[in-house]
Structures are given as C-alpha cells and as structure tokens.
C-alpha cells in the first residue's frame, strides 16, 4: 500500500502553472478487463448489453463534442467526428458481437480483443495519415469499455471542486469532459508535448505533468498532491513547509499571468513614442492561438517545414498548406504573417523525397537551394502561398539565400506558378511581398545588393551566428563559443540594418537572440523595429521596451561597438540594465 511520506516525482512539464489539491485516481488502460466465459443462454443478453453500452457511449461522446464545440471551437471538436461515427458502425459492433457469440465471452473482453485486432490492421496501413486513425479507434473502444463497466462518465463531471486527476492515461475527450471548473491539474503516466490530450489541456490552461512512472500506484485517493507544470515536478503528500512554498510560487505565477494579461493590451512603444513590433515565431498550427494570447503583433516567422514533419512520410497537400496559411493570416491580422518556405535539409527530406545522403548537410542542398532543385516537390507549397494570400497580408520569405541569382530564379519560378494559377482560374494574389532570411554570412555581406531586389529582410541570427563563428551550438565542446554579442556579429547586423534602411525596405530579426530582453533592446538601439520571438517571450520584452527611449538605446548600441570582445559587450549591457533601468522590471523573472 502506498505510504503517506512526502515524495517528489520528476516528469515532463507539458502544460504550465501550479495546481495544489486532492488527488482523484483514474485508471483507464486495460484495467479490470476480465475474460468471462458465458453459457449459451447468456449470449443474447450480453449482445444486448453491448448495444446499450454503445448507445450510452455515443450519447456521451455527442455531449462531449457539443461541449468542445462551445469551449474550444469547431476545429478541436472535429477530433471527435470519427469517434461518434465509429460507435454507430454496424461493422465495428458486428465484429464485437460475433466475438461474443463465437467465443462465448463477455462484451468487455470482446471489445478489448476486437480493438487489438483492428489496431493490428491499422498498423499495416502504409499511408501515415490514414494509419493514424487507429488513435480514434482506441479512444472509442475505451469509451465503450467504460460505459459497459458502468463507470458512468457523469461521475467524472460530479467531482468535488479543486481536484487533481492522477491517471495512467487520459483521452482528449476525457480532458474536455473533466473541464476546467472542477479539475485544477493533471498528473499522467503517459503523454507528451504534442499529444492531443496535452494540447487540449494547454488550451484549457490546466497544469500538466506527464511521463510519471506508475504514479497511480504511489498514492491513495484524496491524498494531498502538488502538480508543477512549469518544472515537471509532482509532490505527493507534501509537508506543511513545502505546501507553503508552492502556495507562494503559485501566487507569483498568478501575478505573472495577470501582468501578462495587462501587457497584452498595452502598445509596444518606447518612452519617446516609437513602436517596436513584437511578432510571433510559430512552428506548429496548434500554436496559432498563442499569437493573440501573448499580444503578438503578427507572425514574424512561420517555419513551414513543421507541417511537412507533422505529415511525414507523405508531403502536405496544397490544400493543407492553404488552410494553415489562412489560419496564420487571420491570427496575424491586421499585421502580416511572414511564411518561410520549407527550410529542409537533404537529410530531413532524404528518405521520402530525395533518396540522397549528404556528407555535410548543413552546408548541403537545403533551404532555397533545395526549393529550386526540386520544383516538383515545392510546387504545391508555392501555389498555396499565392493562393492563401487572397485572405490577407501574407509575406513570402526564402531561407538560406546566399546569392542574388537565387532570388531571381525564385521570382521566375513564382511567375510560372502565377501564370499556371491564372490559366486554371484559381483565385490568387500577385502582389505578395517577397523577402529573404539573412542567415548566411555571404548574404549579410551583400545586403546592400540584395536590398535592391527584395521587399524585406529578416535576420535569422541562429544560423547567422553558427555560420559566422563556425560553432555548432548543440555541440557541448564549443557551445560556449556561440556568442550573439561577438563583435563580428554586431558589425554584420549593423551593415544589414543600415543597408535595408538605405534601400527603404523592411528589416526585422527572428532568432533566439531577440528573446533575451537585453539583446532585444540592443537590437532596437541598432535600429530594428520588428523583432520576432517565441510568443511567450513577448510580454517581458514589451515591458522593457516601454521603460526606455530610442535615444537611450541608440547610445547603448553605439557604446557597444567600442568593445573588442563578446565578454566586454555582455558586461557593458549588464551594467547598463543594472544601473539605468528601474527595478520593477526584474520581477518578471
């Protein structure tokens, strides 16, 4: 039996925030499924029980779907479409029924074995998208089992207030049914950052720690428990001191959230009234709601290759691209959504598309080079970009440009596609802004030449720093040599920004460098008025921007150029913010 000593467990913090409360333990996986042999005269009754169970489960699912529709919108609710359909499918229920009759077993066991058998059939499907449908089947079988076992769903929604669910696994529909009103947090054995369950928990703002080994065996119902989704920590049976510490931390986080909400409505404007546009970097379509949630000013970088990675091994279709771009444009409006064409290296694309293996892929056939080399592969994306542009302000950005010819070749390729769309009579937009990522040192050095032929620059510091300093930041032996404040980088940034200004084109920066508020302010001092960062970093940067004037920051940038090493620049930056910035700013971190 589990004891009641304090225990600290480490898992994966997949949804932020802290919850403190009483545990309710739920076992969903394979629990209590027994094989019971039935006599022949019991079979008819068992089949009837199966159909009643299915009917009940279907009604529950339809209610869940309606609730999801209301609270989360139709996109997330569509997850349940297939579930309801499967529960009314005579083929599915027929298989279960047949198993009851031929094996003379109870309905639970028949459902369990049928699901297993179908799972194997789905596993053999080659098309990845169609194969994923087995996830729906698992969810449906579980509902059916629960309804057969009489674990009525309404019990879940009649929980006392403020409970924390401790479970081996929860389906997306479970989370919706539990709702935000009574449940304050989740501690799960299964799950990862990208599971549907996690995504829904995040959108409900529920703290979640996943990947906790055998957590359901470690405590009793109603045990006191803390779930810290920020650090991935779970404390069972916390003592008074720990409880107090977490209460304070919880209050702190609530203040942080309140601050965030407060800054969301504020303009990102310096003391002297200059607007600095803080835009959002987005990887996955599920992150799109974060644009407005953190008060971003448009989307500064959408890494479109993630759509490919998500759909792999097949390529996303033109329609899938259009749909995601439309969502991005709508989330970004009235500001632009800047979409970067696939930045895939040979290796990422190799298996499915390229059938090549490169010795040194970072310096190989990737980014714009691959786009131009494999137009057949990229055609659907480029068509989708110009088609989606009818929905609003979409800018197209090319990755890894190092030569002017690449811009010219792309324009020719795009012109071809525009003609194609025109002939087909498909709606599209011609006057789409075209820009380049400045991430190869060669591109930075010819920024003045590039500026004549493109509509905007976005400086990609992650790669620019790696390529310039010949440092792989993921290599632990040299990671400390990855220095965003290296004088070489600052000089390059200066040249790129000045070249853009001289040519009268837009220039922004996307890269983790800007997520550090001190670096962000230095960049504003160097003349940047568009920074694109992870949405979560925006509130803090905005708070700092509102405290300072561009004159101060220009002075800061100027003085930073006087130093000869990255370390000296860093020290200068730190002393500037330690002395010149009023204290409340440090509270956020």
């Amino acid at each position, binding site marked *: 039996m589990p004891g009641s000593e304090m225990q600290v467990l480490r898992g994966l913090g997949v949804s932020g925030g802290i919850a403190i409360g009483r545990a309710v333990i739920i076992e969903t996986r394979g629990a209590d499924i027994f094989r019971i042999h039935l006599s022949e005269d019991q079979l008819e009754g068992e089949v009837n029980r199966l159909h009643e169970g299915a009917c009940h489960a279907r009604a529950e699912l339809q209610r869940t779907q309606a609730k999801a529709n209301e609270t989360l919108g139709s996109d997330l609710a*569509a997850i349940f479409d297939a579930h309801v359909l499967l529960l009314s499918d005579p*083929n599915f229920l027929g298989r279960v029924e047949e198993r009851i009759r031929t094996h003379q077993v109870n309905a639970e066991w028949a459902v369990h074995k049928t699901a297993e058998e179908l799972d194997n059939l789905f596993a053999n499907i*080659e098309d990845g998208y*169609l194969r994923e449908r087995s996830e729906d089947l698992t969810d449906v079988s579980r509902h059916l089992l629960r309804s057969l076992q009489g674990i009525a769903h309404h019990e879940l929604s009649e929980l006392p207030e403020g409970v924390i669910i401790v479970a081996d696994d929860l389906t997306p529909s479970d989370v919706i049914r539990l709702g935000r009103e009574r449940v304050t947090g989740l501690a799960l054995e299964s799950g990862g950052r990208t599971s549907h369950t996690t995504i829904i928990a995040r959108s409900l703002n529920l703290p979640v720690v996943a990947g906790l080994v055998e957590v359901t065996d470690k405590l009793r119902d109603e045990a006191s428990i803390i779930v810290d989704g920020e650090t991935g920590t779970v404390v069972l049976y916390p003592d008074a001191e720990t409880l107090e510490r977490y209460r304070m931390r919880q209050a702190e986080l609530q203040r942080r959230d309140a601050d965030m909400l407060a800054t969301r409505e504020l303009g990102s404007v310096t003391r002297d009234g200059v607007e600095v546009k803080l835009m959002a970097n987005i990887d996955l379509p599920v992150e799109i709601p974060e644009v407005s949630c953190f008060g971003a000013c448009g989307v500064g970088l959408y890494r479109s290759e993630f759509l490919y990675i998500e759909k792999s091994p097949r390529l996303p279709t033109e329609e899938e691209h259009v749909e995601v771009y439309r969502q991005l444009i709508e989330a970004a409006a009235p500001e632009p959504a800047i979409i970067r064409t696939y930045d895939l290296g040979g290796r990422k694309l190799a298996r499915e598309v390229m059938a090549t293996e490169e010795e040194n892929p970072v310096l190989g056939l990737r980014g714009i080079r691959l786009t131009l080399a494999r137009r057949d592969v990229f055609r659907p994306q480029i068509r989708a970009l110009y088609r989606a542009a009818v929905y609003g302000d979409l800018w197209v950005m090319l990755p890894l440009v190092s030569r002017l010819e690449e811009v010219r070749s792309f324009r020719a390729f795009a012109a071809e596609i525009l003609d194609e769309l025109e002939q087909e009579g498909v709606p599209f937009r011609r006057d789409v802004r075209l820009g380049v990522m400045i991430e190869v040192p060669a591109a930075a050095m010819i920024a003045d030449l590039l500026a004549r032929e493109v509509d905007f620059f976005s400086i990609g510091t992650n790669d620019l720093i790696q390529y310039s300093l010949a440092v792989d930041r993921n290599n632990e032996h040299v990671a400390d040599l990855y220095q965003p404040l290296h004088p070489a980088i600052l000089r390059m940034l200066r040249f790129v920004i000045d070249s853009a200004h001289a040519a009268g084109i837009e220039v922004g920066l996307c890269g983790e460098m800007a997520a550090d508020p001190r670096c962000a302010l230095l960049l504003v001092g160097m003349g940047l008025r568009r920074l694109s960062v992870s949405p979560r970093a925006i509130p803090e940067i905005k708070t700092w921007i509102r405290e300072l004037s561009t004159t101060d920051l220009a002075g800061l940038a100027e003085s930073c150029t006087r130093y000869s090493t990255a370390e000296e620049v860093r020290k200068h930056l730190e002393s500037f913010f330690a002395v010149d910035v009023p204290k409340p700013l440090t509270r956020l971190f």
Partner: protein
Amino acid sequence: MIEREVEIVNRLGLHARAAAKLVHTAGGFQSRVQIVNGGEEIDAKSILGILLLAAGQGTTLTLRCEGPDEEEAMRAITTLIANRFDEES
C-alpha cells in the same frame, strides 16, 4: 446489380471525414452498396470498413449497387467522389 469503376481523386484519400460523407450518402439509399478494392469487399455504409480500405489518392475502386434505387445510389456516390467530397475548391 450495377457496377462501376471510380478513382479516388481528392488529395487526402478516404480519410475520416470523407469516409463519413460516403457513409451518409450510401446510407440514404435502400440499395446495398459495396466497394471492392483488389480482393477486399466492404460495405459502404460502414465507416470502419472504409477506413480500413486505406484508399489514398489515385486508388481505383469498384462500386457495386444492388437494390430498388441502385441507379440513384450509384449516381450520388460517384458524384460525391468526383467532387472530391466537396473538400477542395
């Protein structure tokens, strides 16, 4: 009984939502509607059967309708497939 060959032309193939539309359409007729793919033969009124066919874009299927309204059923289903399940403009 009538039989016709059809090609799946929508990009996603017979995925969940397309399968659902097919089930609803077929379910609206009295006739028995079957889909044959290679050696497999499934009932078009079952979403599970359709999903397990795993028919991606470009797959050719044989449609078989039998019953009092077989002509109408065949027409409705082939139109739905040719119209890409109304997914694409």
